[in-house]
């Protein structure tokens, strides 16, 4: 009797397990495996982030350029910046950004409203509105509200110089993974998901990928709910096709 019960349990677990394997593979849009990027984990949020910029090694121009007299040559890598006894301007900038950061749902609402056309549906506003807490969550494990994703979308649109004026924009779709602290600041450098790296891609794709990465950096910090306590992981899908089609 008991053996039969355990046998039945085992079969059910296996069915559930098989479903877990099979269903994700049905998805046509699996993100490709990403390159390993070192990430500093921040335990406490300080005024100044302790995440150092991941600077790629200096590029050595390989293409041959002619000059009126003699070919140009690659310069030696620059000397590191000399330390100075002046206040770190990054502190000032961070302070400014904190001042600019929206603090209430009204602020987010204004961000969204600016991206909407007249006549669009009105969203309820008000600080710490209970209704927002019960608003549908988006994405398992990300714990973001629709308001937050709309606000991030609207925010990034203002930072992204879209390559919509390039020929064949359908080849210039770029995916970037972002990891945000609970206050909306970047917890790590944005990570290129597609294309997986800048090496070996054509110049237009490379420029499109750099423009997407630049948009994320220029957009830092991102608008998140003021009562947020968890970090945010998301993939931003930069797609210029719609803009190119409307030109």
């Amino acid at each position, binding site marked *: 009797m008991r053996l039969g019960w355990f046998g039945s349990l085992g079969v059910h677990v296996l069915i559930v397990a098989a479903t877990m394997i099979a269903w994700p593979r049905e998805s046509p849009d699996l993100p490709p495996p990403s390159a390993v990027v070192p990430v500093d984990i921040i335990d406490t949020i300080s005024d100044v982030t302790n995440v150092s910029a991941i*600077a790629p090694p200096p590029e050595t121009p390989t293409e041959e350029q002619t000059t009126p*007299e003699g070919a140009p040559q690659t310069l030696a890598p*620059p000397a590191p*910046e000399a330390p100075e006894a002046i206040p770190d301007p990054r502190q000032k900038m961070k302070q400014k950004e904190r001042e600019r950061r929206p603090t209430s749902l009204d602020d987010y609402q204004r961000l969204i409203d600016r991206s909407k056309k007249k006549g669009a549906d009105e969203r309820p506003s008000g600080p710490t509105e209970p209704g927002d807490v019960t608003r549908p969550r988006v994405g398992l494990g990300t714990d973001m509200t629709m308001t937050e*994703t709309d606000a991030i*979308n609207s925010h990034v649109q203002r930072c992204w110089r879209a390559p919509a004026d390039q020929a064949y924009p359908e080849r210039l779709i770029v995916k970037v993974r972002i990891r945000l602290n609970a206050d909306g600041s970047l917890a790590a450098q944005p990570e290129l998901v597609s294309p997986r790296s800048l090496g070996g891609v054509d110049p237009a794709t490379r420029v499109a990928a*750099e423009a997407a990465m630049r948009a994320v950096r220029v957009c830092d910090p991102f608008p998140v709910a003021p009562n947020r306590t968890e970090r945010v992981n*998301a993939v931003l899908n930069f*797609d210029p096709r719609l803009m190119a089609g409307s030109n």
Partner: protein
Amino acid sequence: MKILRVMKPLRVILATLAVMLMAPALAHAELEIDITRGHLNPMPVAVPDFIGTQAQEVGVGKQVAEVIRANLTRSSLFRIVDPAAYLEQVPDVNTQPRFADWKVTQAQALVIGQSTLMPDGRLRIEFRLWDVFGESEALASFYATTPENWRRIAHKISDAVYKRLTGEDGYFDTRVVFVSESGPRGARRVKQLMIMDQDGANPSILPTGTAQVITPRFSPTAQQITFMSFETGRPKVFLYNIETGRREVLGDYNGMSYAPRFSPRGDSVVMTLDLSGNSEIYRMDLRSRATARLTNNPSIDTSPSFSKEGDQIVFNSDRGGSRQLYTMGADGTNVQRISTGDGSYTTPVWSPRGDLIAFTKQVGGRFGIGVMRPDGTGERMLSESYLDEGPTWSPNGRVIMFFREARPGAGPKLWSVDLTGQNLRQVQTPADGSDPAWSPLLP
């Protein structure tokens, strides 16, 4: 009891299995946000005066930076951040800038350069392009030349920056040949060929003779032009080498020849010949000088222009009653009309990118410059005035130069407009100018 002992490890195994199986499912559930709207504003770029030690180095550094700033601004793809807003004076081209200071200015790219006079008298100009928000170096290079050649170095740096930031070739280290017009209007009007840098600097008259000349066209592969001159009394197509000064008539036909244009490889020329009162398009091989007739129609066929691949030719013809654009194979077969709008279409020019054809269109007494796809779809006008005519493409296919007479009696001036139609600018010339022809990038 025995069963319970078996159950415990089984439970652990099942739990582990379940977690392992759920992991990819959880990873797959990562939130994606589609960003389908952005902006097309010019990218803010900071270009401080190039660094120098001696007075001459400082002077050249300032001039080079000014030319780069002007080039990038004129492209309309970049906006130069006001130098007054720069917080940092980078002391040396090899020093990494303080990115936070440049982020405050909103500059997304930064060009730092340095000019140095070398012991042998030559000028060395080096530069680094920085990605301000990526806090990384995007490009670094240096050039050495005679001091009087500083302007070309500035154009080459502009092209390098443009290409690195847009992914497209630049067009700044190029020249333009055009017809410089002076004197009274009519038969006594003096029309000479003039050459200048694309930004209007260094203009000089080409010694192509004293007779009136029109329709100069640049070879896409060499410093060579072809044009029409009245030197022999009748219109004849000439070939002229800018570097050697060598000049020759292209085929001494017993009639008129005009509207020449090079093939993409520069090894042949298509032109219109009027040998017996009927204008037809011919192709001449520049090595063998063999000529082949491509059209055969009682109407006027003229203004031929090759496609990027050289396998097709666009031309205009009034065979349908009004002047319209037609395409045909490079051998003259498969003629198809591509323009369908009202008015008349003339001077078609295939883009070096191959994706568009520029043309002059006349409707209701006004002229404009427009573009359409090679199959005739997607027609849109980029400019319009009393008289806009004679488009020529920049070598990267993003900008069109043409000439404009703003009102009756006003002299013709050179203008440029980009593919958006938003960046209309007059090009400064010493005198009136018409019929511009844009060179390829200089070697």
